[in-house]
């Protein structure tokens, strides 16, 4: 019963989008970020956190800060967690998904570590791009310098985890330093640049991708814990059935397609 009330609570937040949708849907067929956000009008709207008034749209009276944050950030969050999930839709970060998802606690630890690294590196890479590479016209160093920053963040995280929980450190094993080469981390940093996100959007995008990664990790770990007790045919036991399951999950996430 408590579960239900939680869902209802969450629902009330989600329903707030209903008010947003009326003018967004007809033009784009779904949730959409207002385009042309470099215009003065949009700057203003971001500052005031109100949508530009459109005469052709019936007024709904819904405030446009349903969860206390500007709608576009929420949209980025939803987009990155579900619709354009970094793992199941963009197929980045499959290595830890396969490697560290055999039990829930390790998957949770990995999710936290990755969330930390992803968010931090999204921030750091944006700063490096816009404060260092662009002013000095050395954008060709982008990948190299991003990797450097990511590696440093991971190193930092590893020290942190080792100090905080030796057992978690042990169970994450090689996958912790391998976050460095987790394509999701570099991918998000680069996507932030190509999608011309500003600093706060980059941060939300990084965090949202990490949440998406964590959702899939935890979900997948739950499935694998159940799989561990199943009598999977020998031919498919282990990695094959996990990959099949990941494939099915990816199929399922296609259901969210077209929302944003």
């Amino acid at each position: 019963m408590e579960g239900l009330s939680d869902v209802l609570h969450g629902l009330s937040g989600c329903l707030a989008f209903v008010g947003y949708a009326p003018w967004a849907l007809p033009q784009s067929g779904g949730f959409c970020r207002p385009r042309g956000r470099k215009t003065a009008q949009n700057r203003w709207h971001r500052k005031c956190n109100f949508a530009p008034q459109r005469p052709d749209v019936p007024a709904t009276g819904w405030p446009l800060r349903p969860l206390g944050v500007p709608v576009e950030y929420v949209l980025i969050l939803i987009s990155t967690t579900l619709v354009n999930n970094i793992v199941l839709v963009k197929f980045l970060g499959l290595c830890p998904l396969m490697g560290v998802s055999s039990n829930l606690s390790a998957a949770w630890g990995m999710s936290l570590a990755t969330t930390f690294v992803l968010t931090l590196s999204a921030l750091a890479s944006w700063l490096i791009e816009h404060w260092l590479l662009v002013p000095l016209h050395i954008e060709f160093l982008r990948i190299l310098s991003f990797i450097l920053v990511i590696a440093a963040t991971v190193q930092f995280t590893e020290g942190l985890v080792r100090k905080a929980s030796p057992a978690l450190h042990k169970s994450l094993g090689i996958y912790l330093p391998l976050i460095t080469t987790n394509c999701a981390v570099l991918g998000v940093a680069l996507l932030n640049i190509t999608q011309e996100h500003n600093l706060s959007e980059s941060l939300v995008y990084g965090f949202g991708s990490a949440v998406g990664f964590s959702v899939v990790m935890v979900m997948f770990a739950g499935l694998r814990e159940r799989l561990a007790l199943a009598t999977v045919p020998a031919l498919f036991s282990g990695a094959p059935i996990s990959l099949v399951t990941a494939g099915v999950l990816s199929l399922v996430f296609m259901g969210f397609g077209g929302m944003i």
Partner: protein
Amino acid sequence: MNSITHELPLRAAPHAHDRSSVDRIMLKVCLALSPATAYGLYLFGWPAIILFVVTLLAAVATEALCLRLAGLPLQRLLDGSALLTGWLYAATLPPWAPWWIGAGGVAFGLIVGKHLYGGIGQNLFNPAMLARVAVLISFPVQLTTWVNPMPLGSELAPGFVDALAIIFANADYAAHLSAAPSGVDAMTGASWLGASKVAVGAGTDVGQWLAADFPLTAAFSGHIRGSLGETSALLILVGGLWLIWARVISWHIPASMLGMLSLCAWLASHFNGHLFPGPLFQLTTGAAMLGAFFIATDYVTSPASATGKLLFGAGCGLLLFTIRSWGSFPEGVAFAVLFMNALTPLIDRFIKPRAYGRTLGGKTLKHSDMRKIV
């Protein structure tokens, strides 16, 4: 020593049983499905009957093959689970879909969705819905072509031979009919869910459009364009309620799924009736009813505890509403159910019934808790 040989293998207690069995459960589910399916078969004529039979045969054949490969006794076929998977899958298909959609889809569902995971009871996802999603994504055209109801024996209904051509040779019966001198209106069209989506996209006021065009009574009774076995909300409701009464399924998932869907639809249409159809439309179209009573309630892939079931159903309802309202697919039952299937292990792990003598969190009940009621 006067030792005796027990006729039966040594087992711990209990040495009594209530005579329930898996095959009896599956039989009851099939029985509950049959009114709606029979009506669908009547409504869409011979092609639907052929598609239905082909799908069921393919299901049984696939199951037999998999059991054989797994080295399991073929008696397992008698548990009826494959038949039920085939039945549910066929019920969600457009009634005149080509035979390979039915046979191939159910084979995919049973092999990938069930037997790769070790067979009955061990699958993580609902095989019928997995089949449907895979086929929907791979063959969107075939899966979104709906015929108008043409009851057996009616003037326009194709005969058996025509039906064979439609299902096996992909004959364009509609074109054939409209070329006929009598002249017939469009035979096929979008499903009502698809139509509503198109209407929204075109900027039509959905509320007015539905009020003018949508035949609510027909949708409830089932005389409407739609999938083979899910047009009649009434008959599905009857079958589902009987299943609850027969204690085959519990009320939790259907109630919370339909409740959540209705709640979302009501709130949305209340605040914005131009864009969102109301709960009656949501409940009577598509696979909402079938999904709530027969698909989401699949034992293997839904949670075990009552609270878990409520949560699972509510999740299905919410996702269904979300996908129907904003997704690019007009219908979302399969996606919603599969997504919640994926969450089921987590729900089962974290939401357990309260044990006797313990709090919900698993701690020992305190003396003070007791005194309250003394």
